[in-house]
């Protein structure tokens, strides 16, 4: 078993575009759940709406990339309005069921053969990346960073992605320190108290839903730009609950939490998988086979959801006082 290689792989995974996507989605979910107390179980749909909004704009509407990205964001705003206006008045657990159901409905619509001229059906779409890749400012070639080598296009995605994470986190930090952010936290702790101060709770919740959704949509766009394809079966409930694990690991009511949580979570999964795979090769885990190892990923996600909520609801970086609310 090559321990060094396992850690190298984990480091690569920590910085990978997949991690960027989870971090951005988790930042959005932090706005929803951590700061406002909204139980959104459909974060995958926000990411998917952003991704499909951008891809279809390029593919069918022939818009340039810049406008297509704006379209993706606009789509997620509209999606948040459609989802939020009727449901934000409901009790928290109803909101959870409506969001998860909406996410599944969206996935069914992207999969169905009826719309496959536009959406690509279950095969998805893949002819949209050329403009993004053409904008790569990094000269072609391989770049060696210590013990890993990136191609220019890989480096480009990472730059764009982590750039988006840093800018997004800074914006969130300003927002949450503002009076507006304090109202959100007030809603999380006691909706009625905020209402009695004359604030329009519904309106604030809607704004939180939109902002968190936009973060997820940008995450979704980076995900599909990196792969150069968008497929409906990616945006399942498992995608949503991976984001929840990331958020709860880092700490729901923090900005640092989703970022560090995402990196740590992905690294932990990668290391566990690598170690177990090595142990299986050495014959030390006779009841498991190599394909079983792939299942460990989701098993860890489920386990971390349970253990974190029960034993450490504030996550690694949170404040326990901020996790006592119950919507």
């Amino acid at each position: 078993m090559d321990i060094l290689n396992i850690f190298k792989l984990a480091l690569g995974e920590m910085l990978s575009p997949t991690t960027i996507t989870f971090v951005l989605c988790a930042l959005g979910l932090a706005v929803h759940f951590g700061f406002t107390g909204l139980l959104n179980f459909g974060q995958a749909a926000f990411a998917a709406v952003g991704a499909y909004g951008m891809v279809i704009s390029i593919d069918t509407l022939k818009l340039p990339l810049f406008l297509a990205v704006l379209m993706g964001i606009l789509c997620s705003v509209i999606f948040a309005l459609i989802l939020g206006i009727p449901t934000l008045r409901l009790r928290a657990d109803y909101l959870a069921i409506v969001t998860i159901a909406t996410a599944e409905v969206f996935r069914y619509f992207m999969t169905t053969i009826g719309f496959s001229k536009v959406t690509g059906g279950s095969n998805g779409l893949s002819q949209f990346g050329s403009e993004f890749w053409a904008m790569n400012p990094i000269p072609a070639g391989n770049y060696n960073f210590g013990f890993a080598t990136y191609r220019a296009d890989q480096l480009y995605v990472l730059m764009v992605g982590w750039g988006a994470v840093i800018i997004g986190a800074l914006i969130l930090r300003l927002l949450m320190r503002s009076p507006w952010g304090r109202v959100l936290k007030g809603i999380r702790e006691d909706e009625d108290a905020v209402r009695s101060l004359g604030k329009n709770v519904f309106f604030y919740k809607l704004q939180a839903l939109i902002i968190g959704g936009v973060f997820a949509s940008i995450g979704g766009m980076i995900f599909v730009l990196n792969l150069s394809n968008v497929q409906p079966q990616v945006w399942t409930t498992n995608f949503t609950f991976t984001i929840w694990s990331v958020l709860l690991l880092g700490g729901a009511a923090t900005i640092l939490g989703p970022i560090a949580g995402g990196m740590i979570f992905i690294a932990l999964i990668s290391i566990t998988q690598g170690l177990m795979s090595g142990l299986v090769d050495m014959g030390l885990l006779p009841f498991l086979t190599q394909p079983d190892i792939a299942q460990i990923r989701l098993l860890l996600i489920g386990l971390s959801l349970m253990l974190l909520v029960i034993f450490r609801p504030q996550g690694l970086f949170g404040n326990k006082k901020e996790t006592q609310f119950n919507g």
Partner: protein
Amino acid sequence: MNIALRNTLGRFGRIVAALTILFSIFGGPILSQASAASTDGSPLIITGTVKNEKKPVEGVEFRITGNGLDEIATSNAEGKWLLEVEKKGIYEVEILLESLPKGVGLRDPEANIREANLNATNTAAVLFPLGKDTRVVQPIGDQIIIRLFAGLNLGLLLAVAAIGISLIFGTTGLNNFAHGEMVTFGALFTWLFHVELKMPLLVAAAITIVLSAGFGWLQDSALWKPLRKRRLGLNQIMIVSIGLSIILRQLFILFFEGDTKVLSSEYEKVVLGPINTTSSSLVSMGLSVAALAFVAWFLTRTRIGKAARAVSDNAALAAATGINVERIIRIVWVMAGALTGLAGILYGLQFQANYLLGAQILLLLFAAVTLGGLGKALGATVGAIIIGFVVELSALVIPIDLKYAAALIILIVVLLVRPQGVLGKKQRIG
């Protein structure tokens, strides 16, 4: 909160710095997660066998698409076909109806496209049960009758599974996202006892129901009761149940593999007017009705049932009148386990079983429970039958692959218009 915030921000600044450094020093391969080839190098295979009245059918063509692939496979003299693929992922298999011999059609004429999931396993078996060609255009009246029958069948199955959710929600306030896995539990264990260990079906079903009841007991005593003792919030407990459902699903894959298990391949055909059905469907519907009637009797006529309804209405008040609330909740969990296990058995016998079975119908169950009014056990039955009808009738007007979406849209609309459900009492839900 301010101090905490300041700490966070301080740490935040440091992390940004650390990130920048990390980013510039280290790196690693970017792993594309969309399509990893099989991890152990063994070939990935999509396969199946076509038989008509137990005789293999040669020359049937299958079109396999997905993950950039578009190929045709043809069945050989043994009726077997297979295709090796390179990438993991989900593929669509379409049986090309025009390649079937004359007079032979699909037993379920709409199911000409099925999914082959190669995410978890290296071999995916895709079966298309054949029967007499029913592709004659039926009068719309007959179609509606057929759909209503199928809807009733599905609705009754959902009802048996949904009552458990409703009872648990009523007595504990928990929306149990791991409920679908209890359905899967019933189906997979029946397969284990009946098909693998060759027990008679009734014995296998009886053992499974006892195990399912035990599973309900175990869940409550090992997990949910301690969490209630810790006074964990309901939303937090709901997230725990999501974690549990993911874990159970992965355990099912590890122990049962990811392929579809055939619980019964012997079908005795029954023709009722325009309806072509099987004896097992009719028996299943009868059993569902019996189970539902039993629950209705139990809740309205027995002391424990009445106590359970009292706990649903107001747990504190029930406790004050001398009802042992924890004991009632335990009984509810055991009952829910047994009923849901039964639903899994019936569902598996009609539609076959795999590890995702429960997860696929979970939202339909929530839809049924919500439609009937959360926490009202008998409301769930009405809700489930409505959902069954919606799913099947919607297929007359919208594409077949959107029929579950139709049920979920109904759920969303009901929550918006009448969140207390069709039978629920109006109360504060905002």
